[in-house]
């Protein structure tokens, strides 16, 4: 091949292909690959695109339910919400690029996930995200928070989708490898979902959207390698986002879909033109002939190799109905977007790439995906950690002081500084804004609504991958339940370290088992997801972080619950069993300085029983305020309910059977706080006993403080000051 470098073992290694993987290529095609072909293989066979380490384990995830229209394997998952409507959603990571160039890394993360959703024919109606940063005192953290938040907002705000919820955490284990997980949710007609599989021979393949440049070449390969001190040098592999182009692409795509022009559609995400063209052909049992001379380029002199591996953003590949091609072209021209026929489907099942009259690649199209390496990597289970007994935990300060301190720590404090940079009200459907258990977004003009959340507790996953995996799913389920939603399905974004290390692979396998078990018991299937491995720098891995994005349905969004107390003099009920579990609690970590012990076990049967009961109370209109208990336990949840309303609470003392700090700050699972009018309290308690749901009255709303019998009260003003102070001060350069 003219002007292409010679294939050497060094070149193969530089493409992230192991010697045995290269042998596999030689065997598959029966000759030495061209340089362009080597690039194509490296794009298709890297961890990010091929899931070679994870595929074998992902098979165990429950993915089916009567309401699932499309499970994993397409651009996004699709669920039926009745009335001919479907919700399309997925979460995906953009970790490595965001560490190297936080603004652009985050924007293209958001852009990519939005594209996945509207590629399937859905109009995006909400975004969420889960962000994990290094320790606040780490030199790069402030810069990364600032850039990532600006990037997430910069893209979503301009594109015009509300960012309604998410998580932000800080931990030293993310110092060299932050996590940016972005989730998008869209609404479509259930009978108008679009897929990637091409059909029909000799059909024109059309390229739409922005032009192709040299940005992002090898982005997917970068996402499949560990970081080291030289990672900064990988900056050119980060793509640049253009939310304006994406907004145009959205409107143009939805318009040509509406007009019935589209047979198949695939966005160009990781590994760009290569991945999208191969996917369209392979899924449709067809070959693809691409003519790169027709590809709209932004720069002159791009080689076939560069064009095939470019990850320029805001691009789509489609197969159009030939009789509708002119109509589609007119729509794209109206929106000012490029439109070019760049190839045809063929009966050959070969992937043929031509450039300047030469054939630069000629490969078997199915095998590019199907014959990718598949590894059952060795894995060892994490060692079980001892249970921390509450009686052995000394309280360094009083309950009130601990509350005031804890509510102001980096993980527990208000994330207002973050979500106020996201337009969370655009489209006029955000019924519950950020800061609650789950966001509630109205579906068109109602009365239906969606409950949306993202959750995971990485320190639990590290301490016990199985229980941590269960807990992540259970908490997402609980968040949706706490606003009155019926949990329907999840998307999982699995962030782990280097899978070639058995202990990391053990975390992955353990978490997946936990996720599977929780999904099965809670009837909460996985419909889409993404795996991000090699999240480590200089040999230190991140905390295992399987982010769970949950979607639930409210038949009538006006019957949802929120966490703010509604009136003085209402009864506060605690639902679920409290044992005072302090192991891996934020109290133990941030008040006692001990990050240790086994995390709280998750009783899925109790989760289901308690949650179903709470949802019933919301629908019956009995519950006036609802909040699920998680990080920081009972007292943190109470404080959040008080701060959201300005109404305090008078609380009974901790039961004598429990250590006080363990009662107030323990993180036992499957628990909720619910308020009911005083007149209803007796009836509700009796009813709960009848359902065998543990429920006790712990106090009454009212006053301007959290006042525990026998303890000094803490005013809401004081709590709010502590809650709102840390993040703005930190970002302003004051605190560490």
């Amino acid at each position: 091949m003219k002007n292409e470098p010679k294939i050497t073992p060094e070149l193969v290694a530089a493409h992230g292909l192991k010697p045995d993987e290269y042998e596999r290529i030689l065997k598959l095609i029966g000759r030495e690959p061209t340089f362009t072909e080597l690039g194509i293989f490296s794009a298709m066979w890297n961890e990010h695109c091929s899931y070679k380490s994870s595929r074998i384990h992902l098979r165990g995830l429950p993915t089916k339910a009567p309401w699932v229209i499309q499970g994993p394997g397409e651009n996004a998952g699709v669920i039926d919400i009745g009335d001919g409507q479907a919700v399309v959603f997925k979460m995906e990571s953009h970790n490595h690029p965001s560490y190297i160039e936080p603004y652009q890394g985050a924007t293209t993360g958001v852009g990519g996930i939005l594209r996945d959703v509207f590629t399937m024919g859905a109009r995006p109606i909400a975004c969420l995200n889960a962000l994990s940063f290094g320790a606040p005192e780490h030199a790069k953290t402030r810069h990364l928070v600032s850039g990532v938040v600006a990037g997430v907002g910069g893209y979503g705000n301009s594109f015009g989708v509300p960012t309604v919820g998410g998580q932000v955490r800080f931990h030293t284990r993310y110092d060299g490898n932050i996590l940016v997980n972005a989730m998008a949710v869209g609404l479509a007609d259930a009978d108008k979902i679009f897929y990637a599989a091409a059909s029909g021979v000799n059909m024109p393949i059309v390229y739409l959207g922005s032009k192709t440049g040299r940005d992002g070449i090898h982005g997917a390969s970068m996402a499949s390698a560990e970081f080291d001190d030289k990672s900064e040098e990988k900056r050119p592999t980060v793509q640049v986002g253009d939310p304006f182009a994406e907004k145009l692409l959205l409107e143009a795509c939805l318009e040509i879909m509406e007009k019935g022009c589209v047979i198949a559609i695939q966005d160009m995400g990781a590994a760009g033109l290569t991945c999208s063209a191969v996917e369209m052909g392979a899924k449709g049992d067809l070959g693809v002939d691409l003519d790169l001379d027709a590809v709209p380029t932004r720069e002159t002199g791009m080689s076939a190799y560069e064009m095939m591996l470019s990850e320029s953003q805001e691009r789509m590949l489609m197969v159009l109905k030939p009789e509708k091609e002119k109509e589609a072209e007119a729509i794209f021209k109206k929106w000012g977007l490029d439109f070019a026929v760049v190839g045809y489907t063929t009966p050959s099942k070969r992937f043929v790439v031509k450039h300047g009259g030469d054939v630069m690649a000629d490969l078997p199209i199915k095998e590019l995906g199907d014959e990718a390496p598949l590894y059952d990597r060795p894995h060892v289970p994490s060692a079980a950690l001892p249970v921390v007994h509450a009686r052995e935990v000394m309280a360094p300060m009083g309950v009130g002081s601990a509350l005031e301190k804890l509510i102001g720590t980096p993980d527990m404090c208000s994330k207002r500084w973050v979500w106020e940079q996201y337009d969370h009200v655009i489209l006029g459907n955000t019924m519950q804004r950020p800061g609650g258990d789950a966001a509630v977004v109205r579906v068109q003009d109602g009365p239906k609504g969606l409950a949306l959340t993202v959750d995971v507790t990485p320190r639990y996953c590290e301490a016990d991958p199985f229980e941590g995996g269960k807990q992540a799913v259970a908490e997402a389920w609980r968040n949706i339940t706490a606003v009155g939603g019926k949990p329907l399905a999840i998307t999982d974004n699995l962030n782990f370290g280097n899978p070639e290390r058995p202990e990391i692979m053990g975390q992955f396998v353990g978490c997946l088992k936990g996720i599977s078990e929780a999904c099965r018991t809670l009837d909460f299937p996985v419909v889409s997801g993404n795996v991000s491995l090699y999240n480590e720098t200089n040999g230190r891995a991140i905390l295992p972080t399987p982010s769970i994005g949950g979607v639930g349905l409210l038949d009538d969004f006006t019957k949802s619950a929120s966490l703010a107390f509604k009136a003085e003099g209402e009864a506060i009920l605690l639902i679920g069993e409290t044992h005072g579990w302090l192991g891996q609690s934020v109290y133990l970590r941030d008040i006692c300085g001990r990050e240790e012990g086994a995390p709280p076990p998750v009783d899925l049967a109790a989760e289901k029983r308690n949650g179903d009961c709470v949802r019933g109370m919301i629908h019956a209109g009995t519950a006036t305020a609802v909040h699920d208990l998680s990080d920081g336990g009972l007292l943190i949840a109470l404080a959040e309910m008080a701060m959201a309303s300005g109404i305090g609470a008078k609380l009974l003392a901790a039961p004598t059977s429990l250590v006080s700090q363990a009662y107030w700050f323990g993180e036992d699972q499957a628990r909720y706080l619910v308020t009911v009018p005083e007149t209803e309290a007796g009836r509700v308690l009796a009813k709960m006993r009848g359902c065998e749901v543990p429920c006790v009255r712990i106090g009454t709303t009212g006053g301007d403080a959290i006042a525990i019998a026998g303890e000094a009260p803490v005013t809401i003003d004081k709590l709010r000051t502590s809650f709102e102070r840390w993040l703005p001060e930190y970002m302003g350069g004051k605190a560490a």
Partner: protein
Amino acid sequence: MKAAILVFPGINRDRDMARALRLISGSEPAMVWHAETSLPAGTDLVVVPGGFSYGDYLRCGAIAARAPVMDAVRDYAAKGGLVLGVCNGFQILCESGLLPGVLMRNAQLKFICRDVHLRVERSDTPFTRGYNAGQVIRVPVAHGEGNYEADEETIQRLEGEGRVLYRYCSAEGVVDEAANINGAAHSIAGIVNDKGNVLGMMPHPENHVEDIMGCTDGRGLFAGLAQHLEKAA
């Protein structure tokens, strides 16, 4: 009401605005593409909605100000037609010369989305007749460039002629720097042109018109406009 909503590529609060107008006036607004050279016959209100027209590249509103449809809007305004610009719409009206001044980056250099309070400075205009003078309303802002600035002479004229219709204030109606969300000169949130028929404002009244949003303070603006147009007809 026969409202026309301008749609430039990159505009994204067009649907929010259309819903608000539909809910309050009962009639469906026309959506007018930026490449059009005329407005629909009988248009009695032109709305330039929020968003990121042309990506806000170059400078917010600068490219939209030069779109074909804006010549028609300038003619329409010159004849006394009512024009309402919200957020990016305000920026576009400034860039197109229909309003004085410019919207600079927020003082804190960040995009900001939150509910703010506005003091309605007078109630004897088509854009404020749905409110009482001195009334405090709560509506969201969502912008990165809402910091209104103009030369001192222009500001003095605006103030002297009573053309500042909306000002950022506290919940109690106090106008001070603490409540000045983006650092705007004189806490200006919305102004009219010298003839009083063109309003530009940064906040989004269209996002606070439904009971179920927990606040309907934005209704007054649209209801007042509808009343004004009904009377005129």
